[in-house]
């Protein structure tokens, strides 16, 4: 069945270092991929979504590239900030009215 996998449950790094959170998917169809971020005591909100025309979405310094060959949509940022500490979900939608989330990755950025 369709699924999305985030390999790391916890990522801890020092401010200023690059960030990469992994996301791979398995789908019979070509899904739309998303990254959602949830800060402490807040609602999850959209960070990025994939485009059909291979454009690279960017927001708040984060970017992700959809690679159909490797079924991946990894989230990257060149330099982590303390305010990036949050829970990050990769998710996919196959236009069936169901946005399915990965297990999430907790990113902790230390000074």
């Amino acid at each position: 069945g369709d699924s999305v996998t985030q390999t790391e449950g916890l990522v801890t790094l020092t401010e200023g270092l690059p960030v990469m959170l992994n996301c791979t998917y398995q789908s019979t169809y070509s899904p739309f991929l998303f990254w959602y971020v949830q800060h402490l005591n807040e609602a999850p909100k959209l960070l990025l979504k994939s485009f059909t025309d291979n454009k690279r979405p960017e927001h708040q310094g984060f970017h992700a590239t959809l690679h159909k060959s490797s079924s991946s949509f990894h989230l990257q940022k060149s330099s982590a900030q303390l305010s990036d500490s949050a829970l990050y979900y990769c998710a996919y939608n196959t236009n069936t009215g169901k946005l399915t989330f990965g297990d999430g990755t907790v990113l902790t950025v230390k000074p």
Partner: protein
Amino acid sequence: ETAVFQTPNYHVTQVGNEVSFNCKQTLGHDTMYWYKQDSKKLLKIMFSYNNKQLIVNETVPRRFSPQSSDKAHLNLRIKSVEPEDSAVYLCASSGDVANTEVFFGKGTRLTVV
């Protein structure tokens, strides 16, 4: 800015009681959802409604029942709560069922004692 409103924010109840959670969205969206976020932060869809019609019903115990009076409202009732129902219940909405952004409310935290 919040546009998906959930009440209550918190609810503590005993095993076997009935609870109801309310959700309203002011975005004019056609599709609304209920998600459950458990203690491990796993986020699982429970139900999805499009234009007041149920379109997604995951494997959810029968004691859970969604109720939609119009496109802007989607409530959730749990008939007889059990300890494993303790979680944060997140309501959400989107413009349609396709590749559009899903907007979440802040959630209702249910604790069953």
